[in-house]
C-alpha cells in the first residue's frame, strides 16, 4: 500500500484515539475559560491604561496590543502546555504500551517513523482545535476596534507552535522511556521543573547559565513575545523537538537490547548537543515588532555595521541589578543583532551587587568596552549615550540625525463585550456537547 495512504489511515486512527481521550476533552473544556480569563483581564487592563476610568491615560506609545493583549491572552496556552497538554501527548504512547496495542502496532506494515509522524499530526490537529478560543479572542479584539500588527502577531503564534512541538517531543519521549503514563508524567514535569530551575539560577547569576537558559521553553518563548525572531532560538527548539522524537523512536523500537538503546540514546544526545551548540552560534534575527523595540534606529544600525572587529564588553553589574536587565534589553541584545562579534563578560561576583568583594566594589557599575586593543569605560545604560561613546571609541562617524516616524501606540478604552458569555458560558458546554456527540457517534 502506498505510504501516503498508510499515513492517512494511521492519522485517522491517532485522531480517533486522541478524541477518545478524556484528557484531551478536559483540555478543550478548560482552555476556553483559561484563554477567556486572560483575554478579559488583558482587555480591562489595556482599557484602564487607555484611560477608560476617566483617569490619566498612559503614554500612548507604551500601549502595544502585542504586550497588552496578545502575549497575556496566549499566555494561557503556555499554562495549558505546561500543565495539561503533556498528559494528552503522553497518553498517545503510554496507552498503547500499557494495553499491549503497541505490540500490534510494531508489526503493522507502517514503519515506526510513520507511526510517530501520525501521532504528531493528530496532536497538531488537536492543538489547532484547542486554539479556537485564541482565535475567537483575536476576532473579538478586532471587533472592538483593536489594532494588530501582522508580523509580530504571526511571530508570537510561531513561537507558541514551536513551544507546542517541543512539549510534544519531550512528553512523547518521556512516555517512550517510562514504564507507565504516571512515570512519564513525572518525567515530563521534572523536565519542566528543571528548566524553571535553570531560569531561576540564570536570573540569579547571569553569565553562561543565562546563555543556556536563553533556550528553555519559557525563555525561548519570551523572544517571540518581544517581537524578535531569532534563528538560533528556532533552531535550538527544533533540535530539542527532533531529539524528543528520535528518543521516542529509539525506545519504542522493537527487538533492541537495553545496551543498544542506551548507546543510541547517548549518540542521539551527543549529536543533538553538537547541533544545539552550532545552532546557538547563529546570529541572524529579525525584529518583527511594530515599534522596533529590538533594534537601534536604522541610521545607527547602518553605522554600527561598519564595526567588523570583535567588541568585548565587561559588565560590572550583578544579575539582579535592574540596570543590567535594562542594559541587556536596550543595548546588548541590539548590539548582538548588528555586530558580527560581541562578547559579553559578566564580571560581578554577587547576585545583587551589594556585597561585591574588595576592589570589585569600586568597579561596580562600570561597563568596559574593549575594541582593537583599546579600552574605554562607561556607566551608562542609555542608548544615545552608549552609542555616542561607541562611535567615538571605534572612530566611526555618527550618522546624521534622521527623524524616524515615531511609534504611535494604540490606546483602546473598551470593555471586553461578549467575552464572558463566549468563554465562560458558551465554550465549556459546547466542548462537553461535542465530546458527548463524538462518543455517541462512534457507538
Amino acid at each position, binding site marked *: 500500500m502506498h505510504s501516503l495512504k498508510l499515513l492517512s489511515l494511521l492519522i485517522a486512527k491517532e485522531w480517533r484515539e486522541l478524541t*477518545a481521550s478524556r484528557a484531551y476533552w478536559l483540555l478543550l473544556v478548560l482552555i476556553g475559560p483559561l484563554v477567556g480569563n486572560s483575554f478579559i483581564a488583558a482587555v480591562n487592563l489595556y482599557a484602564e491604561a487607555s484611560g477608560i476610568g476617566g483617569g490619566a491615560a498612559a503614554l500612548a506609545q507604551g500601549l502595544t496590543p502585542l504586550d497588552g493583549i496578545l502575549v497575556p491572552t496566549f499566555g494561557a496556552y503556555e499554562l495549558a502546555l505546561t500543565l495539561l497538554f503533556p498528559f494528552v501527548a503522553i497518553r498517545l504512547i503510554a496507552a*498503547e504500551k500499557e494495553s*499491549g496495542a503497541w505490540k*500490534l502496532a510494531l*508489526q503493522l506494515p507502517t514503519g515506526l517513523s510513520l507511526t510517530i509522524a501520525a501521532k504528531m499530526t493528530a496532536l497538531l490537529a488537536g492543538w489547532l482545535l484547542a486554539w479556537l478560543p485564541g482565535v475567537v479572542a483575536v476576532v473579538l479584539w478586532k471587533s472592538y476596534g483593536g489594532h494588530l500588527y501582522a508580523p509580530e502577531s504571526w511571530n508570537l503564534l510561531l513561537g507558541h507552535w514551536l513551544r507546542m512541538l517541543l512539549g510534544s517531543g519531550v512528553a512523547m519521549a518521556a512516555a517512550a522511556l517510562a514504564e507507565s503514563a504516571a512515570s512519564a508524567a513525572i518525567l515530563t514535569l521534572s523536565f519542566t521543573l528543571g528548566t524553571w530551575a535553570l531560569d531561576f539560577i540564570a536570573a540569579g547569576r547571569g553569565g553562561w547559565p543565562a546563555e543556556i537558559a536563553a533556550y528553555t521553553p519559557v525563555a525561548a518563548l519570551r523572544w517571540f513575545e518581544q517581537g524578535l525572531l531569532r534563528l538560533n532560538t528556532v533552531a535550538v527548539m527544533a533540535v530539542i523537538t527532533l531529539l524528543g522524537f528520535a528518543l521516542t523512536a529509539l525506545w519504542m523500537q522493537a527487538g533492541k537490547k537495553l545496551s543498544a538503546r542506551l548507546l543510541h540514546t547517548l549518540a542521539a544526545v551527543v549529536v543533538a548537543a553538537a547541533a544545539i551548540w552550532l545552532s546557538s552560534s547563529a546570529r541572524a534575527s529579525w525584529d518583527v515588532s511594530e515599534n522596533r523595540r529590538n533594534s537601534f534606529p536604522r541610521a545607527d544600525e547602518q553605522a554600527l555595521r561598519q564595526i567588523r572587529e570583535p567588541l568585548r564588553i565587561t559588565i560590572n553589574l550583578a544579575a539582579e541589578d535592574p540596570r543590567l536587565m535594562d542594559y541587556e534589553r536596550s543595548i546588548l541584545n541590539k548590539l548582538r543583532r548588528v555586530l558580527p562579534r560581541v562578547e559579553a563578560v559578566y564580571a560581578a561576583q554577587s547576585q545583587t551587587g551589594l556585597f561585591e568583594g574588595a576592589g570589585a566594589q569600586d568597579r561596580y557599575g562600570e561597563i568596559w568596552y574593549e575594541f582593537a586593543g583599546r579600552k574605554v569605560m562607561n556607566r551608562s545604560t542609555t542608548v544615545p549615550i552608549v552609542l555616542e561613546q561607541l562611535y567615538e571609541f571605534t572612530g566611526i562617524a555618527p550618522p546624521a540625525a534622521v527623524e524616524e516616524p515615531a511609534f504611535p501606540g494604540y490606546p483602546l478604552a473598551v470593555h471586553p463585550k461578549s467575552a464572558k458569555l463566549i468563554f465562560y458560558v458558551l465554550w465549556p458546554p459546547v466542548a462537553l456537547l461535542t465530546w458527548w456527540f463524538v462518543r455517541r457517534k*462512534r*457507538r
Partner: protein
Amino acid sequence: MDLLTVHGVSKQFGVRAVLHQVGFRVQQGEVLGLIGPNGAGKTTLFECLAGLSPDDGGKVGFRQQTLPAARRKEALFYLPDGIAPWAAQSVQWALGFFEKLYAGPIKAATLAAELKLEHLLASRIGSLSKGERKRLLLALGLLTPQPLLMLDEPFDGLDLRQTREVMALLRQHAEGGRTLMLSIHQLNDAARVCDRLVLLSEGCVVGEGSIDELRELAKLKDGGLEEIFLALT
C-alpha cells in the same frame, strides 16, 4: 517444505536463562502447537521470533533464507495473549482498520460472522468480555496476510463451543494455505487442533513431531498427549 526454521535461539533475563538453544521447524500449511508448562518460555519465544523482544543468539530462517529481526513482520504476524488494545474504539473500527491496512483477500465482515462478532460491531473494545475480546483479536490476526500466523493462547477465555468453532476456523485457514503456530497450555486442545507439536520445558525443546513421533520419543506404547508431556517434561 519448511516455512520457518529456528536454530539455537536463546534468551536471558538477567542471570535467568529463559530460552536455551531453542530449535525447531515450521512446515508450510501446518498447524504447529507450542506446548509447555507455565514459565516454559512460550510467550518469550514468540516475542523473540516476532522480533519484538531481542534474543541473545540464534538464527531464524524463512523459506531457506535468514530472516533478520527487523524483517520478521514481513513473514509472520504474532498475536499476543492478554492484550486489550484501543479500548475506546469500536469492534467495527478495529476490523475495518486492519482490513484497510492490509487489503487482504479475507473480508472483515466474513470473519465477524465466522467469529460471531456481528452483534458486537458497535461495542467498544474496552467493554468486551475476555472471550469476546479474544475472538476480535483472532479476527484481527486472521485479517493479516503474512504466511505464518503465531497465536498465543488462542483458546484462552473461550467456552467449549467457541473453542471448537475457532479450532474449525483455524483448520480451515490452514487448509487454505496459511501456516499457524499456536501456543497452547490446554493439552487436549493442542492434540485436537495441531498437526505437529513442539514441547518446551524450562526454555529447552524436549520434543518435536506428531503425537505418534512424540510417543515414540517418550518411549511410550500408548497414551495421549498428557502422558507424553509428563514423560518428556
